[in-house]
C-alpha cells in the first residue's frame, strides 16, 4: 500500500458523527415519548401520529426518488449532451475517471446567478447542474474545483443522507400541524373523550421541541457535509486554491443578485455550491447557526490547510 498525502480529517469526521448521533438520539426520544403518550391515549392521538408518519415518510421517499427531476424542473435546467457542451462534459469525464465514479448527467440552468448543484439518490441517477452565470464567470480551473465539490456530494450520497436526516423534522412538523387542526376542528367531540385534549397538546409540545432541535442539527450536519465536499473536491483536483478563488467569486456574485431570483432558488438551497439566500437580521452568530453552508472564512481556512498538506516535502507516514 502506497503512502498517502490524503489523510482524512478526523476532527470533521468526529463532529459529523456526533451530530448524527444526536439526531438519532432525538429520534429515539421522540418515538419513545410518542409511544409513552399513546399508551395513555386512544385512537384519535394514535391516528394522528400514524397519518403524520405515513405522510412524512411518503414525502421523503418521493423527494428522494424524484430529487433529480424535481431539481431539474424547479431550476429550469436542461440536460446537455457531450456534443452540446463538450468542454463541460470533458471536465466531468476526467474528474469521474480520477475519482473512479459513475458519471452523472450534466445539465445547464439558464440563470445568471453563479451557482451549481448536484442531486439524485445515487451516482447513477444523479444530475449535476451548473448555471450559465457560473460558466461565464469562472476560469476553467475554478469551474473544475466547483464540479469536483459537486461530484463529492454525489459520492458522499449527500441527498440520501440529508433526506433521512430531515425525515424526523418533516414528521414532527406535520404532527404540529395535524395536532393543531384536530384541536381546531375536533373540539365538538371532546366531551366523548376526556383524555384527548391533554394528549394532543402533549404531542404538539413534544413535536415543537423535536422540530426545533432537529432543525438546528440538520443545519449543522449540512454545514459539515459542505466542508467534507470542499475537502474531497480539493483533494481530487489537487488545486485547493482554485476552489478557494471560485468560492470567493461566487460568494461576491451572490450579493449582487436581485431578491426575486434568490427567493425562487431558495428551496434548493441545501444542495447549492454557495447559499443562494442570506439570512438577514438576527445577528451574525444566529445566522451562522441557521445556515446550510459554513461561512466563507471557514471554507477558505480549510482549503488553506489542505494546500499546506499537499505541499509538504515528503509524504506524511
Amino acid at each position, binding site marked *: 500500500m502506497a503512502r498517502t498525502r490524503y489523510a482524512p480529517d478526523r476532527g470533521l469526521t468526529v463532529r*459529523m*458523527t456526533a451530530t448524527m448521533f444526536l439526531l438519532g438520539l432525538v429520534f429515539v426520544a421522540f418515538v419513545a415519548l410518542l409511544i409513552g403518550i399513546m399508551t395513555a391515549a386512544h385512537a384519535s392521538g394514535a391516528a394522528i401520529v400514524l397519518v403524520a408518519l405515513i405522510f412524512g415518510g411518503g414525502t421523503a421517499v418521493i423527494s428522494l426518488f424524484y430529487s433529480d427531476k424535481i431539481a431539474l424542473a424547479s431550476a429550469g435546467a436542461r440536460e446537455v449532451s457531450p456534443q452540446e457542451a463538450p468542454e463541460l462534459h470533458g471536465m466531468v469525464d476526467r474528474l469521474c475517471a*480520477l*475519482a473512479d465514479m459513475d458519471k452523472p448527467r450534466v445539465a445547464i440552468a439558464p440563470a445568471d446567478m453563479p451557482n451549481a448543484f448536484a442531486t439524485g439518490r445515487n451516482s447513477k441517477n444523479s444530475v449535476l447542474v451548473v448555471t450559465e452565470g457560473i460558466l461565464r464567470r469562472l476560469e476553467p480551473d475554478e469551474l473544475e474545483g466547483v464540479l469536483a465539490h459537486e461530484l463529492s456530494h454525489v459520492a458522499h450520497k449527500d441527498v440520501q443522507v440529508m433526506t433521512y436526516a430531515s425525515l424526523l423534522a418533516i414528521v414532527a412538523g406535520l404532527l404540529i400541524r395535524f395536532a393543531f387542526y384536530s384541536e381546531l376542528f375536533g373540539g365538538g367531540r371532546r366531551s366523548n373523550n376526556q383524555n384527548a385534549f391533554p394528549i394532543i397538546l402533549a404531542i404538539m409540545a413534544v413535536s415543537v421541541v423535536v422540530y426545533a432541535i432537529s432543525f438546528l442539527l440538520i443545519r449543522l450536519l449540512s454545514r459539515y457535509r459542505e466542508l467534507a465536499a470542499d475537502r474531497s473536491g480539493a483533494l481530487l483536483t489537487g488545486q485547493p486554491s482554485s476552489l478557494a478563488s471560485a468560492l470567493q467569486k461566487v460568494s461576491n456574485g451572490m450579493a449582487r443578485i436581485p431578491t426575486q431570483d434568490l427567493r425562487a432558488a431558495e428551496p434548493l438551497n441545501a444542495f447549492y455550491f454557495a447559499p443562494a439566500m442570506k439570512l438577514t437580521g438576527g445577528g451574525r452568530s444566529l445566522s451562522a447557526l441557521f445556515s446550510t453552508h459554513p461561512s466563507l472564512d471557514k471554507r477558505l481556512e480549510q482549503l488553506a490547510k489542505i494546500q499546506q498538506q499537499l505541499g509538504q516535502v515528503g509524504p506524511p507516514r
Partner: protein
Amino acid sequence: MGFLDTLSGRTKPVQPKLDDLFALPSAAITLQAATGFTPTGSGSVCFRAVEGKTFSDIQAEVRELLNMDAGKPGGGLPVEVTKDSYGFTWLVSSHMSDETDALVTDLHAVNSALVDNGFGPQLLCTLVAFRDEQERRLALVYLYKRGTFYPFAPTSGQRRDNALELQVKNVLADDLKIEQDLAKWFPVWGAPGL
C-alpha cells in the same frame, strides 16, 4: 465507498493500479496480427498536477530521469511535457515503433515516481498510440483507477470510430483487461502523442 465512509462524508482518494500496464507489449503484437495496427512508438501519461513546488519538483525529476537515456539506442527522444485545455499534464515519451517494451518502462517510471511520492491519486490515464496503413489513428487508453484498458479511435473533428473500437475490444479481450462499462470509455480529444 463503504457505508461508514458515506456516513462520515469521506471519499478516500483512489490509488492507481499499475501492474496491468505491462500487458501492453504482447497486446500490441496481437493487435498488429489481427487488425494491422502498429505502435507509433509514442505514448503518454496524463495526470492532474498538484499546485505548489513539491509537485513541480517531482515532475522535473521524472523528466530528467527519462531524458537520461534519450538519444542512446533504445532510449527514445526526450520527453515532451504539455498541458491540455483541462489543466491536465501529459508527459509524452517517443520511441521507435518496435520498442514498445522500452516505452512501457518509461511510462511506468512516471507512475512509480508519482506513487512513491504520495501523489498516486493524481494519475488519470496512460495512452499508447497506434496507426494502420490507411493512417487511421487508434489509442489504447489505460485507466489507472480501474486498471482497465479501452480503445479510442478519433476520426475527423470530435467523432470517434465506434465500430473500430468495438472490433479492437474483441481482438484484445484475451490479452488485456478491457473496461466492460462502455460509459467509462471517455474520449481524450487532442491527446498529445496520438
